[in-house]
């Protein structure tokens, strides 16, 4: 059974249908990418899944449990966390504190224990700190544990976001453009990290990305959105040659040879391009 199932999800904002009957099925321990031109509704879809918006129609389930109507913190407790297109860290807290905040749902001390600071609570706090440090180790930020989040370099901040998202031991993690604004070396490190998420931690990953080389390299399946609709879904090979996908990126009738199009990099082109070529970001 798929870990995560979205069926016919629809979301309207006034007259605009941002997400139009999108269905997505994600198997456990897999990496799925959601791609599409700018404005296709990918981030909106993530927002719906994590509970920021409520879908107008459709079902969303995680391990068979429906997520529709739940608050974001409840969905996080069920095991879905995310990162953001534009990084949203808690800038005035340290790196370690950011991770500890993410652990919030996994800490069991009741309000009274917190206020009275019993020994059970203190032990839990100690364990939490250790776990937090381990997570930072995993994303290679342990040496920065006590620095303020806003003092980190861009790439480090992205890694911290992932670390924070891992803190609650999620089953499914949604990464929104994890490689945005990265140079090739950083992109490679990011790719490596995502693979380790699946291989070492057993977490299912769904990512939104514009960097096609990254997408093609690690995705097991790819879903393509355009104008809110899912226009294609399949293996990377299938998607690469899907005429509808090409059309979506290039517009009708155009068969461009340039790597970059007005609506983003063609998957085929990107796959063919050498790894050294700069990729387009948002």
């Amino acid at each position, binding site marked *: 059974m798929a870990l995560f199932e979205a069926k016919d999800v629809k979301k309207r904002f006034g007259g605009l249908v941002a997400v139009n009957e999108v269905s997505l099925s994600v198997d456990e321990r897999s990496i799925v990418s959601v791609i599409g031109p700018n404005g296709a509704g990918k981030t909106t879809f993530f927002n719906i899944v994590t509970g920021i918006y409520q879908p107008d129609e459709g079902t969303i389930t995680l391990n068979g449990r429906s997520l529709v109507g739940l608050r974001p913190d409840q969905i*996080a407790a069920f095991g879905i966390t995310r990162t953001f297109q534009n990084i*949203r860290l808690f800038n005035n*807290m340290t790196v370690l504190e950011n991770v500890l905040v993410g652990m919030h749902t996994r800490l069991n001390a009741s309000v009274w224990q917190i206020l009275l600071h019993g020994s059970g609570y203190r032990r839990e706090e100690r364990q939490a700190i250790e776990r937090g440090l381990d997570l930072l180790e995993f994303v290679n930020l*342990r040496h920065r544990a006590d620095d303020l989040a806003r003092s980190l370099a861009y790439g480090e901040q992205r890694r911290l976001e992932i670390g924070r998202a891992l803190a609650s031991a999620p089953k499914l993690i949604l990464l929104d453009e994890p490689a945005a604004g990265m140079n090739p070396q950083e992109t490679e490190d990011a790719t490596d990290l995502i693979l380790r998420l699946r291989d070492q931690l057993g977490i299912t990953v769904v990512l939104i990305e514009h960097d096609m080389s990254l997408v093609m390299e690690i995705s097991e399946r790819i879903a393509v959105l355009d104008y809110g609709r899912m226009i294609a879904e399949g293996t990377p090979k299938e998607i690469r040659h899907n005429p509808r996908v090409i059309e979506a990126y290039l517009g009708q009738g155009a068969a461009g040879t340039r790597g970059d199009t007005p609506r983003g990099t063609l998957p085929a082109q990107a796959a063919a391009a050498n790894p050294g070529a700069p990729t387009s970001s948002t």
Partner: protein
Amino acid sequence: MAVKAQAQPLASRQASVGTLRQVLAPIGQIFVFVVGSSLILGAIVLVLALLLSRTQANLLSGVLTVLPLVIIDGLVLGFLYATIALGYTLVYGVLEFINFAHGEIYMVGAFVGGGLGLWLASQGLLAAMHPLLFVVFALLVAMTASGLLAVGIERFAYRPLRNAPRLVPLISAIGVSLVLQDLVRLLAGPSRFNLRYPQLGLSRRFQLLEIPTAAGANLRVAIDSQSLIFIVTSLLMLIALNYLINVTKLGKAIRAVAQDRATASLMGINVNLIIAMTFFIGGALGGGAGVLFGVKYSTVNPYIGFIAGLKAFTAAVLGGIGNITGAMVGGIVLGLLEAFVSTYLTLFTGGRFSGPDYASVASFLILIGILIFRPSGLLGEATTQKV
């Protein structure tokens, strides 16, 4: 609140030292401001006295004589404002919302403590109790009551308006404030409009200085134990709050909600619960201040919250709204300022201007000045620093 980060790795022993330092650092800041403000204000007053002593004989000696008393007055008043200001600044830091009903929550705390005293006296239990035990008991009960009241207010008067334009919950807060004033007035009844706290026999005075005066007898500068209780308890509250916000999991959650509510929610934090807890803590601090007021000044009435709340809010802004230590610093500076103006204005104008009348004017002028010249406050930073 900025958490001062160390560069070394986090070993557990260093953690406790670092935590200790972090939690106690505000005491140092407060001490600096107490001493500094007293010195500055004292110097201003002395210079004025020197300048004016050509027209008024004995002015300089009069000024010096009263100076220690005025400083003590100012400190006590200052700590009163500071403790109330803590509640304002905490809620503002998290919600960017000024809870104008906070002054009334403080007043309710005062009445709960007083009512408890009356009830204990009627049951004959008060006499058997050690006075400090009563104070602690009253603090606990009043803080709980005020905290719950604050949570209730948030739930029914503010939460439904969370997405409304900023002005709307503000007006709701003012409405709650008025309702509470009259509700307490109604419940207390005309006979208990002025509610008297039980006399605990705590009035031991600790003599600090003896100053010879022009009037003949020596002026004894002393501080009474109620004022000491006041100051010590306020400092304890500050330390506890600091610890809560910076070290505990709840504190981290509060800070996360303060910085980015939506993201905090996505990280699994129940935002509504955290906001409720913030109001509980802020309300409890206000209620505690109310009991301390009653113990020190012995009579409370339903209108003590209004002006005190306004002044405490001024203090919070003065210190940098959203900054916890700033609230205390602002309160103390404001209290000292008011005490100096109250006494010295009368002295310098030979009684033509009554100092106590103008003390409030001075406070609010300072507020305006701060907002013009340094809107972030004494301890605030240029960008709004959130809790």
